[in-house]
């Protein structure tokens, strides 16, 4: 089931963050949502995740949604495997498979607070994917990782997406990340979807690909930044 939003709006007091969003997320499509900080990217994601009761408009969304947040948000008093199985109806073997997929089999018995940032974020992905969601929401899950770990996790996410084929909405402020990962890039500005740009370049993609370089300039301009700095 595709995800459809029409006339979705949200204001915090007088400040209108989402004005009127009309959007369709197609099955199996990897969409990146870009926007300046404070543009309402996360607000939109939280609305889709069912975490915002005060959002107005129509949201048609499958019940099968999973979220990975910016901070991994593992439950600190549950060992890793118990975090994956939390609220899961499937057998434990599924959770173990999910941990294996993100390369954390050996850490199944570890306390979350002993994990590195990258490990915790991988665990958070495993916890989301083990539920076999039709829609996977990623709220800047890579922004707190160091550059090297981020590259590894980008590959991992693409791999997992190719295998499970959920629709993905990735909220990010990183243009390069969007260009490397997504089928489609949305730019949120002034509470509306200001740009909706497909990316057809084959994967694996390289930063230096001329199509992507051109797109980068376009997107940075849409975000109000020239490649050399603020315009």
């Amino acid at each position: 089931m595709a995800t459809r939003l029409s006339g979705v709006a949200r204001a915090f007091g007088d400040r209108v963050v989402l004005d009127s969003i009309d959007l369709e997320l197609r099955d199996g499509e990897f969409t990146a949502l870009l926007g300046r900080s404070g543009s309402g990217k996360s607000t939109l994601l939280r609305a889709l995740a069912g975490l915002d009761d005060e959002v107005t408009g129509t949201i048609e969304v499958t019940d099968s949604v999973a979220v990975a947040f910016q901070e991994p948000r593992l439950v600190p008093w549950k060992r890793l495997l118990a975090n994956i199985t939390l609220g899961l109806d499937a057998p434990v073997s599924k959770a173990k498979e999910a941990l294996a997929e993100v390369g954390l089999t050996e850490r199944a018995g570890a306390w979350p607070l002993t994990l590195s940032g990258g490990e915790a974020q991988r665990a958070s992905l495993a916890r989301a994917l083990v539920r076999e969601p039709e829609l996977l929401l990623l709220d800047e899950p890579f922004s707190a990782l160091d550059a090297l770990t981020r590259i590894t996790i980008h590959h991992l996410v693409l791999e997992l997406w190719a295998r499970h084929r959920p629709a993905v909405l990735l909220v990010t402020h990183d243009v390069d990340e969007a260009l490397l990962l997504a089928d489609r890039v949305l730019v949120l500005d002034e509470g509306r979807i200001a740009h909706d740009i497909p990316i057809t370049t084959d994967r694996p993609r390289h930063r230096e690909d001329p199509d992507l370089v051109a797109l980068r300039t376009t997107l940075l301009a849409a975000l109000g930044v020239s490649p050399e700095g603020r315009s």
Partner: protein
Amino acid sequence: MSVVELARPVEKARATPKAPRRRVTAWHRWLSPLALLVVWQLASATGLLPERLLAAPATIAATAVDLTQAGTLPTAVGVSLQRVLIGFAVGGTIGVLLAVVAGLSRAGENAVDPIMQMLRALPFFGLIPLFILWFGIGEEPKILLVALAVSFPLYLNTFSGIRGVDGKLAEVAKTLRLSRGRLIRHIVLPGALPQTLVGLRQALGVAWLALIVAEQVNATTGLGYMINDAREFLRTDVIVVGLLVYSALGLATDSLVRLLERRALAWRRGFLA
């Protein structure tokens, strides 16, 4: 009852690694207490410190052995321990249950919290006369006084523990579609546990205090009775033995909770280590 708001940094202090230098010189810390003991014994032996004021350490030790062999001390300890345990179980259960009711909803808070705050302001030792009128001079008033004293620190700490649970984890629970029951069991209660354990240690402290007071006022058995009875006969040695046993029991129960803490909060120790 200002005890209740204190003691938060307890676990942190425990986590500081011991410096090796401290361990080498640890025996130095025994020097002054030992010296004091020697001075005390000498003062008693020379008659400087009369026995009707304070018995000599050697006499106290001998009395402790006698009381144990005669069975007086073990019986008294058994009675007192039973009072504390029953009172603690009753008061602890009530305190934690009320905290859960108040912690989980605004309505629950409005219903429970004002009453608890008002009761907390009562000087509970002042309730002893009422308790005697209501429950007589048997076991009930002593047990209930302990229960009352224990319920407040556990209530306050568990309540604030529940309210302190990270809202972000509640959001995770929502996205994982946890039922309310599972949310409470897997997120709320374990999240409140560190604070509840702080409350548990405070509660044990006041439990012994409440018992001592209750047993001083009216008792025909137990440690308090043994001490009171000894006063009639100017047996300062028996009084000191009783006091020492009280403090030993307090220390023992406290270390029991610390053991519990170490097991229950292992997830946090992993982080600190």
